[in-house]
């Protein structure tokens, strides 16, 4: 199976509380924070590799292409999925101000039409904008079925049985490729992905794989094809325009340390009137 994995570079999500807003509110900056691969996209890369390999022998069953849309230096971030095992990468150069989910979906559509993958596998959301929209929009633009928030993908007679994490539990669908699947955290649990080739006895580690030294060396030689938004027919500009950014108000008051359970219950009853 040929799999395309769109990925995004984000400011270190574990330090998101250090994001800054310019005094006039026109810009949000991540100065001082490291760039990371969006965690959900990293899981999508892992899921793509699991789908396209015999986990027991390491034999590869198909190509995995990673794609990003962003600044020139996103190439540095793209080396990570290449080191994990993706075969090649494509970067569509763009300024953040030029893009929104619809532009991203249009750019990805053009790349899908050129590359003709069987599956697009991507994170359910990027943890900077937190929009959770690009995968769904891409599926619609392509006229493909989709399975969002996937916690499991099991290959089944040429189709994929996907367990979706929804508010009320797990919704299972069976989808026939080509399709778009967006992944949730649990896709990288030991049994999240079954491709029908990797023996059932093979147990994956929890989480995304680390790049081996050999993988890191190999990644340096892998191709990154750089394109422009115009090349992919997505230079019309964003329709979602941000006009102002602000920091949330701090929670009022300091934390009060209570000595014991009795004091806690007393405070909740008489002071906070919460019980």
């Amino acid at each position, binding site marked *: 199976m040929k799999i395309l994995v769109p990925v995004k570079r984000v400011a270190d999500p574990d330090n998101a509380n250090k994001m800054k807003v310019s005094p006039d509110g026109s810009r949000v900056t991540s100065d001082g924070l490291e760039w990371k691969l969006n965690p959900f996209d990293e899981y999508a890369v892992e899921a793509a590799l699991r789908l396209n390999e015999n986990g027991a022998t390491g034999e590869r069953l198909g190509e995995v292409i990673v794609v990003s849309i962003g600044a020139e230096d996103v190439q540095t971030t793209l080396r990570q999925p290449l080191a994990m095992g993706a075969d090649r990468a494509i970067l569509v150069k763009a300024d953040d101000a030029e893009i929104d989910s619809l532009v991203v979906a249009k750019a990805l559509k053009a790349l899908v039409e050129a590359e003709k993958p069987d599956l697009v596998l991507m994170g359910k959301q990027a943890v900077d904008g937190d929009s959770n*929209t690009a995968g769904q929009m891409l599926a*619609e633009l392509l006229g493909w079925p989709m399975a969002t928030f996937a916690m499991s993908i099991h290959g089944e007679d040429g189709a994929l049985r996907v367990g979706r994490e929804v508010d009320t539990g797990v*919704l299972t669908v*069976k989808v026939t490729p080509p399709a778009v699947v967006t992944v949730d*955290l649990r896709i990288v649990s030991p049994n999240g992905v079954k491709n029908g080739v990797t023996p059932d006895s093979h147990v994956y580690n929890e989480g995304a794989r680390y790049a081996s030294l050999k993988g890191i060396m190999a990644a340096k030689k892998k191709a990154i094809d750089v394109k422009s938004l115009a090349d992919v027919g997505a230079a019309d500009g964003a329709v979602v325009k941000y006009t102002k950014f602000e920091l949330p108000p701090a929670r009022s008051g300091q934390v009060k340390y209570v000595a*014991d*359970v009795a004091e806690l219950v007393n405070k909740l009853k008489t002071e*906070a009137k919460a*019980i």
Partner: protein
Amino acid sequence: MTDVLVVAELLDGGLRKNTLSAVRFARQVAEGTGGAFDVLAIGEGAAAAASALEGYGARKVLVAEIEGGYLAEKYAPTIADAARGTYGVVAATASTYGKDLLPRVAARLDAGVASDIAAVSVEGGTLSYKRPMYAGNVFGWCAVRSDVQVVTVRQTEFEAAEPTGGSSPTETVSISSDPAADRIEFISLESVKSERPELTEAQIVVSGGRALKSAENFHTVLEPLVDALGAAMGASRAACDAGYVPNDLQVGQTGKVVAPKLYVAVGISGAIQHLAGMKGSKVIVAINKDKEAPIAQVADYFLVADLFAAVPELTAEINRVKALG
């Protein structure tokens, strides 16, 4: 003047109450722009759900009866066709249903999406949306410059609309289809049924973290406290990932967002991703061994204690106080 189409959410053939948050939003836009709003009940049981929506001030309640389990591929064409040329805004509540479905509708309409919004402002007929970004650490205000604007609203920020009386007329809309639906099949929806209040609607939420150490401890240590408080049970991502509880209890940036009157975090250190899902709570209590845990940044009350001793004691104390009345 902006007319709004609200897409209702159905479950088991009935209306999900979270729909009323999107109705609240629609009223704000309609009032602010001098427009009106309609509600579309779509799915299996739409006709019955429509009758539950008649008393909320909608100009019309639209009905699209579609048999079988929910699939975005089956719903999106009908919603897009109903919306095109008629509505300025299409809205739903930002549940997993709204988040799955509405972007697909938007792409069909060549529309931009403002997702999971916390507020809307109307100035001179122009709509701006405030949305949480970076796990709720930044709010961005955005405008959507497409013919139709597609919006999902955060349930905790838009209080359920109350009935206005009156009765909106219902109207059946025609069903459109898309070949994409031929390549996807609904197999099942497995839900864990609980007698407890729904997490996103509960007045009190008690959440457990990895420090509970096992599924068994969630059951024997945390659940008695949950029930003593008449609360809903939640969990941190770490506890869900460890398999202690199902993932639909996850509170956080990518799980559920809650804002109850009282939130009790038991053995939860307070990673940024967790805080994003609960820091809007009115009163926050932390029970943790580590007084420096990041949960202290948002907690009102902090009991530094071993949860295995403190939680049973707290449960007993709550029960005692409640018995006294």
